[in-house]
């Protein structure tokens, strides 16, 4: 192995430290803002560390009294959780059989291109008819309507992810099952689903995060506490006339917490999911 010079080691550790600061500093600042007093935040020169940690904004934003910022944010969180859950379950229900068919029947493989192609369609190209359609069906500003629209994003994505996940599962197992007289649905249910459970879990995780992150459709198709998601609530706060920046930061922390914690806990799964498609082709 190569001998490493002292200068190179110093360079490595300095760069590593810089990278850590680059990634963590914005996160740290968001959190510090959320617990700093307004006086600290508007002082010049700026106080980088609060004189005293102030957690009152977290209490304020989790307060459920009607017509407060807290009530608005909490109902948005609830809507996000539900919309993402409905959309994820629906997307998996249709994309598990599709992914398996794509993986096992070469004759239909060309349709994978169509599926991926739709994933690349810009949402603006579907937004106007979807808006008119939802309005016609009375589904504007409903969680169900938004979840159906999210299928446009989630279903093609999960179908593609599942197809590449099903590919490495040997076909011999299915052949053996067929010889033993198993029906197609039995093969799928008893043999394939348990083997594919990790892949399906990964797909569900990605789908959920995608839905949680979505903003454009949510902005267009929801208008109040009945369906507004957390991304829209955050945008409202950021663009509104709130004088306390700490409150905006606190809302940001609350909205970011679920996906960021998910990300940290599931990072192995996420990283392998993110990189397999591009590296293995």
């Amino acid at each position: 192995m190569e001998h490493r010079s002292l200068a190179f080691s110093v360079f490595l550790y300095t760069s590593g430290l810089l990278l850590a600061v680059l990634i963590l500093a914005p996160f740290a600042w968001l959190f510090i803002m959320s617990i700093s007093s307004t006086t600290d935040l508007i002082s010049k020169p700026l106080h980088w560390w609060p004189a005293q940690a102030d957690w009152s904004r977290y209490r304020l934003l989790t307060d459920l009294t009607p017509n407060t910022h807290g009530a608005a944010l909490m109902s948005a969180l609830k809507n996000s959780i539900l919309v993402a859950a409905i959309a994820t379950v629906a997307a998996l229900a249709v994309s598990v059989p599709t992914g398996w068919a794509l993986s096992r029947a070469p004759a239909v493989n060309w349709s994978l291109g169509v599926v991926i192609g739709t994933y690349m369609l810009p949402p603006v190209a579907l937004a106007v008819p979807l808006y008119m359609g939802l309005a016609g069906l009375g589904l504007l500003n409903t969680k169900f309507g938004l979840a159906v629209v999210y299928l446009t994003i989630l279903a093609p994505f999960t179908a593609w992810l599942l197809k590449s996940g099903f590919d490495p599962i040997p076909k011999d197992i299915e052949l053996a099952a067929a010889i033993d007289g198993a029906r197609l649905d039995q093969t799928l249910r008893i043999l394939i689903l348990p083997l594919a459970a990790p892949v399906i879990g990964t797909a569900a995780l990605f789908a959920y995060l995608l839905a949680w992150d979505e903003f454009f459709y949510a902005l267009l198709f929801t208008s109040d506490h009945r369906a507004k998601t957390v991304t829209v609530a955050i945008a409202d706060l950021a663009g509104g006339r709130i004088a306390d920046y700490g409150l905006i930061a606190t809302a940001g922390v609350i909205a970011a917490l679920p996906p960021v914690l998910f990300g940290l806990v599931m990072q192995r799964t996420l990283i392998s999911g993110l990189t397999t498609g591009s590296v293995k082709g």
Partner: protein
Amino acid sequence: MNTNLTTLRAWLLMLPLLLIMLAVIGWPFVDTLRLSFTDARLVGTGGDFVGLENYRRLFSSDAFWRAFRVTTAFAVISVLIEMVLGVLVALLLFQDFRGRNVLRALLILPWALPTVVNALLWRLIYNPEYGALNALLVQVGLLDSYRSWLGDPNSALAALIVADAWKNFPLVALISLAALHAVPQAIRAAAIVDGANAFARFRYVILPYLAGPLMVAMVLRTIEAFKVFDIIWVMTRGGPANSTRTLSILVYQEAFSFQRAGSGASLALIITLAVTVLAVAYVILIRRAAGEKF
């Protein structure tokens, strides 16, 4: 006995997904196409057929060409920064040193942060009166007085690009890192034994393995950047003086703020066309990358 699923059964298994996609993607897309030839309003009348009038007006409008330039600048510059930074970070984290596993774990954080929260976070950092960037630059003496980073047409787009690049370079770094691990150890060792210097090793040993995945990442990121809406909407709404108004923002304003569904639809289709060109390039690159390997 045939191990492959019969084609008919495969289509049946795919039927639910295909029907749903037909309803929520196929039909809206065809309807957008139809609307683009009408002067329909968002609410109310269906509108009359106007032929290519919407397209003619678009191509002769300054707003369209300006938005096109802004979108292209945003996509090209932010993706370029993400690529360069991503590869450099991957090369760093490929080295063996203490703490690199922690750094690798940190990379997932900006990726997992919701785009809208990222936008809000940077909006606070750029704040003209109390923002951390102003405070930092003034306190270390790089800046004389506080500036309105997002309020100045000369700096708003650059400020947005920094915010976008910060969130997205980790993805490129993760993809590059995975590609680096795919380089066979024996080849790297052989190059060292043969006396190749660090640059030659990167150029002739590492880069061939990196090129394919990087191309894929680049095209995917470019497509995403070309469709950009959320980060811009939350940070600047396309302002100031339309200096950050991308094509997607323009569609939103046209179709939803001004309720001109027909002309908004024609603009949306032009974005689709541009993204399709990028997507076709993507498919060709994937085929080529696959062809090289097998």
